[in-house]
């Protein structure tokens, strides 16, 4: 049976291989799930039926999508056509990822949808659907949807019973995309006349104060995720939620609901204006079959494809003709969204827009999680924005650097040549050099190509500045920026020194905990007469066997404010639940707890091995001399453990220092980047902040320097310890 299964697996693998060779389908990438994915599949089958051109779909997880596109397309490994929202358009364009939409006829689509896809008068991409936010109302609980915020506030007390887990209102309040309607409704603006983002405005303060009050009055839950909104609404425990058209596919059939436009803000008389996003099919600049790719992208955006995407995928088409179709006309959801989108503000497709998210998230969380007053949050975001918005440093001349490299090479050669000639000929000193070379060659080749070369490239990248599409040589400017801690006082989170201090404390606390817990358990387990010894040992190494990103996500779930097991435990003990990621101390503690769970088994195993190698006679002799247990531990166990434990401790400290997964996945740097360590900060610069590879590389070089200093210190430590031990 098992053999058959293996054969079947092999066969499918082979057939997949063969199919890839015989006819190359057009590659279409998207980030759809559920109904939208099904619709896209049907539509691409229609395309194949019409044209005979096969289409291969790839669903990329949304979080990884942007990075994957920017990596793959310039290397010729990307899709022919991909579906993405328009707001990254200018960024993609700067990186030369996009081909102009050559067969697009403007009149086919809504004018604002086409305009959203324009850069310097040229249209890139075929608009497929419009995405904006509206109010989903549970009609059983709320027969008449609120037209104004005053209506809303009047209704909420009757709909809410926070202690029973019922809320009048819910949306992903920590996400700027969802906050934008409040901001614009309170008269706030995002960009000033010069096109720069402005955060410290009255509208910002008022909108933040409004949602903070909703949360404080417990009309809406705290720390809301999309999953929570879905489950609350489906269980009838949230009367109204803000979401987009994609949410319709997730509402349970048992819930009767309506979709209406967001209410008007009573204070200003302005309707809450959500962002309008245009989802479009883009043709890759690297596509080898531009004509077919253009045809596919156009096909996806119009006519029968629009109909399927509307009825099956529940998307709001950007195609004017679609609204003439009977099925679309009669569709209440589509027309409600179309209606709600009238108030929407098209999201700018500028590079500037991309730099707004992180500061806004910081401000939102700072206010909602407490600690920051709404009127101060704008200034907070402003500073973050300025720190992220790094001006391009002036180009430096590479000549001095080339000179330096040349001089070093020359100096090195001279030093080698001038060394006193060895007394023995080379052959005699190293008799087995040929054999050694044969044994070493394969490993050396691999390491050179895939470890050493990337390492050297990484080092040299730190001297460059990267703007999407081009590198420019800037010398030490990146390092100066980091070390001068531009934009932040050195005692604040987000300054290099603060992050460095956090990293050092993080490594120290973890290693101390790993070693002491590991050693303690090893002491308990070392007795060979202990029953069930093997059983305990097996149970205790389980955390080591679980992949660490799974550990991280698992613990993140356990630290969940509302549904986490840890808070459940606290409540069961009669304590207050804790909002783990809103304060530095608790967020840091959550990271440490996770990493300790993950790390103690390694130390336990090493300590166990070391303990077993200590001769038992030593203890017996000490016993005879009348030494107490404590003295025995201090005088015998600890000194004899050192040679085995020290290398493990050193290795563990380097691992912890670079333990990216735990920080990134558990606290995610919350609150406000405070718990980020150096590696996660470097990762953010490289992959989340407009790909500032040079700056990130400079960060990495500094990490490397710190670890180098640490390793030279530990080397001395090891030498000292081996001298003591003789």
């Amino acid at each position, binding site marked *: 049976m098992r053999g058959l299964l293996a054969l079947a697996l092999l066969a499918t693998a082979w057939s997949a291989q063969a199919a890839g060779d015989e006819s190359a389908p057009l590659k279409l990438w998207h980030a759809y799930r559920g109904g939208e994915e099904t619709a896209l599949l049907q539509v691409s089958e229609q395309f194949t039926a019409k044209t005979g051109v096969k289409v291969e779909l790839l669903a990329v997880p949304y979080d990884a999508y942007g990075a994957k596109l920017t990596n793959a397309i310039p290397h010729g490994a990307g899709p022919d056509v991909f579906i993405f929202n328009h707001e990254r358009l200018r960024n993609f364009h700067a990186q030369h990822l996009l081909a102009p939409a050559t067969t697009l006829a403007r009149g086919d689509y809504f004018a604002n949808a086409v305009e959203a896809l324009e850069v310097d008068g040229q249209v890139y991409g075929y608009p497929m659907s419009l995405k904006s936010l509206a109010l989903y109302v549970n009609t059983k609980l709320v027969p008449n949807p609120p037209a104004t915020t005053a209506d809303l506030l009047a209704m909420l007390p009757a709909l809410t019973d926070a202690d029973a887990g019922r809320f009048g209102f819910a949306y992903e309040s920590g996400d700027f995309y969802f906050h934008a309607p409040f901001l614009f409704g309170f008269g706030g603006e995002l960009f000033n006349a010069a096109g720069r983002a402005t955060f410290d405005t009255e509208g910002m303060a008022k909108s933040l104060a409004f949602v903070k009050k909703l949360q404080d009055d417990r009309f809406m839950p705290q720390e809301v995720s999309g999953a929570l909104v879905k489950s609350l609404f489906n269980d009838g425990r949230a009367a109204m939620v803000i979401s987009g058209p994609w949410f319709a596919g997730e509402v349970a059939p048992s819930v009767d609901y309506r979709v209406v436009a967001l209410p008007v803000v009573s204070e200003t008389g302005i309707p809450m204006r959500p962002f309008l996003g245009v989802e479009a099919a883009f043709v890759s600049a690297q596509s080898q079959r531009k004509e077919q790719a253009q045809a596919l992208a156009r096909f996806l955006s119009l006519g029968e494809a629009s109909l399927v995407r509307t009825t099956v995928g529940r998307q709001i088409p950007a195609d004017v003709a679609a609204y003439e179709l009977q099925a679309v006309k009669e569709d209440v959801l589509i027309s409600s969204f179309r209606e709600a989108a009238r108030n929407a503000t098209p999201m700018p497709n500028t590079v500037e827009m991309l730099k707004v998210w992180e500061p806004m998230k910081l401000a939102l969380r700072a206010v909602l999680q407490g600690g920051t007053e709404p009127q101060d949050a704008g200034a907070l975001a402003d500073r973050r924005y300025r720190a992220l918005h790094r001006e391009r440093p002036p180009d430096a001349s590479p000549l001095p650097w080339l000179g330096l490299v040349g001089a070093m090479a020359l100096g090195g050669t001279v030093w080698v040549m001038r060394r006193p000639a060895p007394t023995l000929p080379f052959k005699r000193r190293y008799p087995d050099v040929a054999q050694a070379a044969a044994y070493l060659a394969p490993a050396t080749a691999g390491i050179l190509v895939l470890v050493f070369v990337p390492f050297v490239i990484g080092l040299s990248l730190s001297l460059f500045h990267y703007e999407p599409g081009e590198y420019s040589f800037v010398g030490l400017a990146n390092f100066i920026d980091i070390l001068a801690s531009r934009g932040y006082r050195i005692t604040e989170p987000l300054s290099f020194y603060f992050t460095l201090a956090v990293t050092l404390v993080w490594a120290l606390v973890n290693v101390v905990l790993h070693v002491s817990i590991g050693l303690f358990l090893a002491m308990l387990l070392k007795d060979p007469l202990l029953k069930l010894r093997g059983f305990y040992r097996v149970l205790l190494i389980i955390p080591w066997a679980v992949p660490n990103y799974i550990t991280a996500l698992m613990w993140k779930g356990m630290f969940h404010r509302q549904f986490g097991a840890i808070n459940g435990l606290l409540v069961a003990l009669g304590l207050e639940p804790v909002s783990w990621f809103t304060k530095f101390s608790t967020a840091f503690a959550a990271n440490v707890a996770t990493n300790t769970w993950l790390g103690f088994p390694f130390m336990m195993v090493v300590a166990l091995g070391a303990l077993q190698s200590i001769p*038992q006679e030593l203890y017996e002799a000490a016993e005879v001399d009348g030494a107490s247990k404590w003295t025995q531990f201090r005088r015998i166990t600890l000194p004899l453990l050192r040679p085995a434990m020290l290398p493990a401790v050193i290795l563990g400290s380097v691992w912890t220092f670079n333990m990216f997964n735990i920080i990134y996945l558990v606290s995610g740097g919350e609150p406000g980047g405070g718990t980020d360590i150096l590696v996660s900060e470097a990762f953010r610069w490289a992959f989340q902040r407009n790909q500032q590879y040079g700056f990130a590389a400079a960060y990495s070089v500094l990490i490397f320097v710190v670890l180098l200093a640490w390793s030279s210190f530990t080397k001395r430590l090891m030498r000292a310890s081996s001298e003591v031990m003789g």
Partner: protein
Amino acid sequence: MNRPSKLKMAAIHAGLMLLCMATLYPVLWVVKMALSPTDSLTLTVNPFPEAITLEHFREVVLGTDSAGRWLFGRQLLASLVVSGATTVVGLALAVSAAYALSRFRFPGKEGGMQTLLITQMFPATLMLVPIYSILQKLHLLDSLTGLVLVYATTALPFCIWNLKGYFDTLPRELEEAAVMDGASPTQVFIRVVLPLARPALAVTALFSFMTAWNEFILAATLLNDPTRFTLPVALQRYVGEYKVEWGKFAAGALVISAPVMALFFALQKHLVGGLTAGGVKG
């Protein structure tokens, strides 16, 4: 040795049991999520499921994608092939290199060992961009071969250090005796050294396997074809930033962790010796 008192033993058992419970709690919690019918979190302390369903496992293991393809089988195969090949390639390279570093004299030996360690200190995620370009130049992007080469070489420094430490502790007299009996250097290596180093080999193999089996950032970046995804990349689809399907995530997590746990249990006797006998001693 004097027999510990009954009381002391009882205390040790109680302590160990308590710690085991603390250690197992998160794991039980995942088991519970995987077996519970709901797909979201619920606030309870009880780590045992109230109702049991295998639906999440069924969906993760037997589910098909929108094109009707059964991806799990291929992804499992891809994971096994990648991890297996990484172990074999990595071990072959590490064993010979470590042996050379332990036994032969040649220029640049100390420097080479130090360089190996030093490269480990550069944050791995930042090497992603250069590695991507190199694989593309070698035409190994989006291929399992490329992934195997990257995994095998990035795990090499640790493997080499661990094995070299172990080889250093093996008595040379045995090898000399074999040479006296007329064995060639290759025969000495294969017939004498390798069998003696079995515990360290087992542990090193386990590490190589784990590196490949668990890694997901590189795999997610380098692979584009869902039929070639390794399991961690496939698991990523259940824990998006905007939607977390806890039940399926938990079921997938258990499926992915199971083989490594099995290996750990099989090799746990060697674990202690293989890490510490020669250990990572410098």
